């Protein structure tokens, strides 16, 4: 969907850069969980979207709900990259860091480049709070910030003054600090305040609180306008992004999956039953779908992960589309039941919002390390199709595609997303559901007769008959069954035939998916081949590398099992294949296994996404300069 950028408009914008010559900025908000950092980030996101900017965000928060204040590990941050050009990554280095306490400052310093602007809440740099952040000296008072532009603002006191008329004491006023800072940031980038004003008015029923927060927001904004500091705090308006004609909204990955399920259910004319058990970072999908029965999706919060997938399987058996969602540890628990769905030949969607493992790992940090689990991780020869989303907006289309496959082939499908995509947001052109072809299923029609185990020869999907239908009363289960009658069978040849059928069914998915395309660049030199949430950063890195004259192309996979039929041939046209992944090399293994190709790896498992710089360095190592005369 992101191909909707208007290239001509992009060129036209070149002349309308902001004063500093930059088309886009990276801002990072950082403080304690209790400082409302994520809220500031979301509100700023909304404002820049409505201001016409393209954007990408990176929420980065601790697993603890209210981590001890002032500690380094308790720092919650929100980064947004926004502006008047196409934006695919949340940005490597913030142009502006706004730090609410010493810990927020020190943990984010390593990311900054010289010249970056740092705004700090001066009052937070007390001896006690420096100690909480394990600092023996105040960084505002030594030379450690010499290479940056530092602006000290007494946000705490200014907020206190702004909200005093509404009866807020010093302590309560601290809770309005986030809106003060947000107001200043909105001024600084000339973003509209109205969405936040509307949000505050909706959100706070209590009049005093509502007015106090509005006052804080406006005071922060006014501070920017009038402070004498204007020479340091210049305004940096950004032009509107060159967007193709459409209606846009912001979307997170969790919203993308939820909306995709709603749309897919409607396109398939099938009720959807979403069954899950709370787990970070997957729970938000459940939250988005709760209470949407009128749109064809019901939700069930089960007693555990196993019950969640089992209830979904029960729903699929009974004629609804069962969906379950979790993260790696929960997916592990669901494994046995996935085998049942394969054996019973039932449609099912399993969403995995991956997080850093093993075991509990790092629940709020992202990783792509469940690919082996998705493709190989079941007992028996139990193949299932696997798809991966590449961005929040892409979650919508990939979810619809997953449902299409599940209903066409009567198979469980694993949909991989991750903690980064789930929480991050981007600007999304709202699709018209009427432009999507209906999703076909194998539900019996009035004329269907015979056994439920007759299979479409091209998809190997069996008839999706459900209880209530007098014509198809049948029994099925996890015991191996006769390929024709479905009755229990331990027959040797039959098990061979069933195993072959299950493999052929998943392989047949490749007959229906589009050929793999090259995102950018052309064959010959280095192919950067990847999957999942690294898409945006890789896009930027490859784009910059091409502009720098390197012979490099980007290939990004949605279908991981089966791989697109032309992928082997496509990769054969490149000199080198580089696979960057946020794991220790799982797609690399898969490509070697399935396509017998040599691949180089770039791996990172820090719980953080790649930076554009990291990828560019790796490309530099593997790519040759593009020789113009070699080109045909």
């Amino acid at each position: 969907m992101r191909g909707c950028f208007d290239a001509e408009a992009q060129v036209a914008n070149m002349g309308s850069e902001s004063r500093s010559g930059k088309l886009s900025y990276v801002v990072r908000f950082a403080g304690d969980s209790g400082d409302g950092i994520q809220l500031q980030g979301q509100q700023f996101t909304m404002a820049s979207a409505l201001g016409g900017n393209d954007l990408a965000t990176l929420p980065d928060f601790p697993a603890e709900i209210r981590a001890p204040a002032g500690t380094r590990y308790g720092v919650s941050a929100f980064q947004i990259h926004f502006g008047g050009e196409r934006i695919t990554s949340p940005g490597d280095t913030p142009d502006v860091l706004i730090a609410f306490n010493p810990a927020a400052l020190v943990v984010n310093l390593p990311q900054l480049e010289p010249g970056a602007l740092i705004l700090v809440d001066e009052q937070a740099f007390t001896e006690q709070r420096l100690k909480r952040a394990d600092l023996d000296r105040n960084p505002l008072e030594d030379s450690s910030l010499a290479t940056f532009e530092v602006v000290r603002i007494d946000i705490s006191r200014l907020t206190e003054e702004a909200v005093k008329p509404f009866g807020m004491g010093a302590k309560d006023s601290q809770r309005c600090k986030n809106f003060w800072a947000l107001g200043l940031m909105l001024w600084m980038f000339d973003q509209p305040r109205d969405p936040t004003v509307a949000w505050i008015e909706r959100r706070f029923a209590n009049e005093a609180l509502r007015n106090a927060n509005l006052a804080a927001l406006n005071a922060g904004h006014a501070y920017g306008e009038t402070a004498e500091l204007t020479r340091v705090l210049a305004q940096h308006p950004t032009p509107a992004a060159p967007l193709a004609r459409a209606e846009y909204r912001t979307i997170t990955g969790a919203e993308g999956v939820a909306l995709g399920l709603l749309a897919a259910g409607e396109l398939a004319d099938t009720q959807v039953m979403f069954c899950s058990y709370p787990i970070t970072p997957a729970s938000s999908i459940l939250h988005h779908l709760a209470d949407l029965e009128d749109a064809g999706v019901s939700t069930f919060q089960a007693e555990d992960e196993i019950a969640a997938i089992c209830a979904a399987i029960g729903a699929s058996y009974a004629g609804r589309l069962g969906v379950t969602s979790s993260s790696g540890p929960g997916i592990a628990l669901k494994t046995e039941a996935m085998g049942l769905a394969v054996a019973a030949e039932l449609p099912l969607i399993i969403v995995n919002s991956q997080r850093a493992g093993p075991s509990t790992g790092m629940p709020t940090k992202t990783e792509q390390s469940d690919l082996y689990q998705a493709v190989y991780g079941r007992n028996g020869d139990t193949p299932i199709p696997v798809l991966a989303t590449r961005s929040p907006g892409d979650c919508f289309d990939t979810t619809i595609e997953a449902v299409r496959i599940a209903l066409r082939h009567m198979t469980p499908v694993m949909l991989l997303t991750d903690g980064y995509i789930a929480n991050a947001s981007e600007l999304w052109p709202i699709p018209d559901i009427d432009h999507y072809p209906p999703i076909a299923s194998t539900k019996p029609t009035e004329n269907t007769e015979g056994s439920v185990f007759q299979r479409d020869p091209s998809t190997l999907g069996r008839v999706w008959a459900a209880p209530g239908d007098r014509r198809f009363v049948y029994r099925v289960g996890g015991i191996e069954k006769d390929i024709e009658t479905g009755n229990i069978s331990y027959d040797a040849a039959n098990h061979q035939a069933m195993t072959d059928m299950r493999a052929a069914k998943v392989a047949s998915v490749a007959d229906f998916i589009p050929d793999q395309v090259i995102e950018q660049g052309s064959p010959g030199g280095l192919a950067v081949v990847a999957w999942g949430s690294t898409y945006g950063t890789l896009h930027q890195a490859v784009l910059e590398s091409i502009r720098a004259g390197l012979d490099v192309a980007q290939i990004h996979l949605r279908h991981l099992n089966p791989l697109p039929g032309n992928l082997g041939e496509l990769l054969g046209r490149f000199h080198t294949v580089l696979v960057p992944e946020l794991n220790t090399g799982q797609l690399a293994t898969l490509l070697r296994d399935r396509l017998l190709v040599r691949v180089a790896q770039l791996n990172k498992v820090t719980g953080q996404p790649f930076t554009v710089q990291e990828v560019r360095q790796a490309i530099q190592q593997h790519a040759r300069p593009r020789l113009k005369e070699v080109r045909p």
Partner: protein
Amino acid sequence: MSEAVRELTFKDYATDQEVRWCPGCGDYSILKAVHRALADAKADPANTVFVSGIGCSSRLPYYVETYGFHTIHGRAPAIATGVKLANPALDVWVITGDGDGLSIGGNHLLHALRRNVNLNILMLNNEIYGLTKGQYSPTSRIGTESPSSPHGSLDTPVQPGLFAIGAGATFIARAVDIDQKGLPVILNEARNHVGAAFVEILQNCIVYNADVFDDVVAKKTAADTQIHVVHGEPLVYGKARDKGLRLNPRTLALEAVTLGVDGVTEADILVHDETNPVLAQLLVTLRAPLPVAMGVIHRRQAPAFDQSFVEHKPAVRRQRVRQLLHKGNILDRR
């Protein structure tokens, strides 16, 4: 499914599949009682679903000519919950055993009962693991010698009925596999109950735990070792119907008394009130030398989960989806 169902006999509820239990297994008579109960209820096979887990008992759905789903170990209540929520019009049965339902699947049974999902849950309790060749189970009595407990099992068994009470079950009954008259009646009481109905059936595993219930079910002594409870009737038993249960107010326990002995009259005998959960707890835990309670021990009305889980079919679903796609702030660049 408005088409009229032709009158079905109990044979029509049997499938053409060869039944594969050991000869003499109590499961045969339970299967027969299931066929009988369905015939008595004129159950529509198309609207009936049997869901089971793993174990000897869990093979039962293959032998019932209705929809059936033989699933994975312990998970039948969860899968049945999904079936029932997806289509509340279905009559959904869960077939489980003591290992399946109280060991590996104890959690799901707990939640199906406390949610009061409208399911008919039959637990075929044989106090042993049959299909895995005779290991002691969570209901095996202390000292059960088995391949995995050669010197006798050490762990205290779980009492299925007491577990069900603890889970907040709204229907609890108990029956014996060979009771071909009483069992189908109880099965239909369970079927008619709105909410989760839990029926413990004492089932004889003739191979690995033969006659373990003899102290309760042996024909010769059954009249004295069982008490068949009926709502609103006095709790009497015995061949001569001369014994009864009385509440001892000092111990808060039931005690056996004989009419006419020590001045005991019918007025001293407790009357069964199936809606009383306290009495249910006293009855469900009765053990020799007191008689073991059979019949509907507890039944009360409470909202069933699937009733509150109805789908609201929208007039224009697509319009609603479109509306949700446009939720929030919109940047219009058309």
